[in-house]
């Protein structure tokens, strides 16, 4: 906390009244053009019923919202999204943590291992989706061949759980690198003296990990949990589109995918806009949580 006096001295006084506004103007302009304007359009569209070409429209207030929220397909999509996001976040974080701890133990070629682990982050989501789709393609995929020879009737085209596993694998795989990077950084910050002291006291490696390292990584883990959930929620459209297209049935139709499907495939623009407004509210809520709690706690000291 800063006392009154420091606050005063920290305050920058501009010599000119217009200058500060000029300085923030570019940022404001970008926000206006790329956020407020489209958001306003979406809000307006969400209260309209319109034919695809926009030739006839009717203002219906909140009828689209009522319709969407009463739609069992929408409720199903919420469930799908929750399962998918949590599974993706947990898998991506658990694997990344394991790899980070392992990479820490490597003595020679540490930098090489780290670089290799970070690489997949550069792959575009749709490409990652295609890679996994090929690996697990029921006919030509090499991994599905292995699964079949193990006696598993692998069929993501018809089996909803298989499709979900495939999606989670692709989405989590892409995020592992990012999490790895943060966990490696987090591990650097764990004081070596603590670990050495525990080792001298006879604590074994697993014990040291769960009682010292893991709790000290908690801020990083919490931060990553939020980031990964947001990623799974909003950044995985490309993967869903490339891998399952929301099928089979509606078992992998996430909220974001449903916005696309209703708006751009089925051309029901009002419903789609209403859904995107709901999503916007969710994003705002998540961002608020992140700023209020996470941003404050993630940094040590």
């Amino acid at each position, binding site marked *: 906390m800063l006392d009154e006096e420091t606050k005063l001295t920290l305050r920058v006084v501009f010599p000119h009244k217009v200058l500060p506004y000029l300085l923030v103007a570019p940022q404001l302009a970008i926000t206006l053009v790329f956020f407020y304007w489209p958001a306003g359009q979406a809000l307006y569209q969400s209260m309209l019923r319109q*034919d695809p*070409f926009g030739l006839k429209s009717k203002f219906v207030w909140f009828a689209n919202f009522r319709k969407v929220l009463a739609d069992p397909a929408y409720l199903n999509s919420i469930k799908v999204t929750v399962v998918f996001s949590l599974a993706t976040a947990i898998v991506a974080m658990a694997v990344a943590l394991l790899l980070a701890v392992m990479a820490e133990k490597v003595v020679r070629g540490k930098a090489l291992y780290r670089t290799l682990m970070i690489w997949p982050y550069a792959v575009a989501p749709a490409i990652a989706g295609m890679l996994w789709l090929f690996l697990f393609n029921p*006919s*030509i995929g090499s991994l599905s061949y292995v699964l079949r020879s193990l006696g598993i009737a692998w069929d993501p*085209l018809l*089996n*909803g759980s298989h499709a979900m596993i495939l999606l989670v694998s692709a989405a989590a795989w892409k995020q592992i690198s990012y999490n790895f990077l943060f966990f490696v950084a987090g591990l650097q910050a764990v004081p070596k003296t603590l670990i050495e002291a525990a080792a001298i006291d006879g604590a074994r490696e697993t014990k040291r990990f769960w009682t010292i390292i893991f709790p000290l990584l908690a801020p990083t883990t919490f931060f990553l949990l939020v980031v990964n959930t947001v990623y799974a929620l909003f950044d995985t459209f490309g993967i869903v589109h490339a891998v399952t297209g929301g*099928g*089979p049935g509606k078992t992998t139709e996430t909220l974001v995918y449903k916005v696309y499907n209703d708006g751009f495939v089925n051309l029901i623009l009002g419903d789609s806009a209403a859904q995107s407004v709901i999503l916007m509210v969710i994003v705002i809520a998540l961002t608020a949580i992140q700023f209020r709690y996470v941003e404050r706690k993630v940094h040590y000291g």
Partner: protein
Amino acid sequence: MKLFGFAAGVAATLTLLSTTSAFAVTQISWWHAMTGANAEVVDKISKDFNASQSDYQIVPVFKGTYPETLNAGIAAFRAGQAPDIIQVFDVGTGVMMAAESAIKPVAEVLTGAGMTFDKSQYLPGIVGYYSKPDGTMLSFPYNSSSPILYYNKDIFQKAGLDVNNPPKTWNEVWEAAKKIKASGAAPCGYTSTWLTWIHLENFAAWNNVSWATQQNGLAGGDVELKINAPIFVNHFQALADLAKDGTFKYGGRTSEAKQIFLAGECGIFTESSGGLGDIVKSGMNYGIGQLPYDSDAKGAPQNTTPGGASLWVFSGKSDAEYKGVAAFFAYLSKTEVQEYLHQKSGYLPVTLAAYEATKKSGFYDKNPGRETPILQMTGKAPTENSKGVRLPNLPQVRDIQNEEFEKMLAGQETAQQALDNAVSRGNAAIKDALGN
């Protein structure tokens, strides 16, 4: 990222501006959804047209799958950037027809350019589908297709089936598929693309049963689906039973199953006649048969309905552009162009002259089976059940049907439940779309 996208957009606009001003010729943009062998046909036709005259230049642009192309066109129209010509698949016909002020009927484009349009030169079943009830042709049929049966002759041989005698009824298909699977000739007996188009819409027409009220939606108004009638239920239950042990293999909602057939996994395959190009290209020892019919249906086989896509012209373009579009359509109607399109891609010729010319050239004698889709479509005068289907939201209704089929094939629903659900959900969606 956003800034980068903006910069890219500006750059693209600048290039566009500079290219349009650099040429004196009128550019005609044509958005299409053709891939593989069929994309080569699009490029060749465009190139030949551009070389044949110097006033207009056709610029074909690939816009993704059929639904993606339609959406791109709609989005472009709303933004005031519509292309001149857009290829819209059969299912999108209802969507385009409902948007009367967004499009310019092809009949008007042609007469406006001083050309006469003689309807009698075109295959009636196809042109009828793309016309208004009063007979005005709205879109130009570019690639018309009909579902047919393909089979792998090598697999038939191994399974001990008659190589020259493909199954004619669905029951025969089921038997042959079981034999292929049981004999180990292939891991699966039968697969199919587009279950909605082939096993519902064409199944209904071919067996002369109703798909929906109001002449399958062609008469407009309150349309109700009829696809839970016993004949459909029996058909889909048979399919679901075969799916249990993998005798029937599901490939996906659109044409994904083609890969399964091309990989030699299944012996029998139903798919659009337009899928032929890729099968020929693969070098497979294939055979073609008529689309199977249900032996319980009276008077079957009736006739199949046109699938594929047609070319629509957007409204609000300059006279020069419309003249160019008309010139292109006139070029497309030429007998030699239609012959090329038909023989290379497997799509149907749209003019009678091209059909006759192909027949005369002995093409069908050398390629038996290539005439099958035309005969299927034109063999009998269409009834109320077989003129085609039309809904303002057919893509959505097909999606619903696909979802129910997937649940059924996964064993979560019986055929009766799946089709009942498809009817009730479909009817609700149609009512909703009509209320717009």
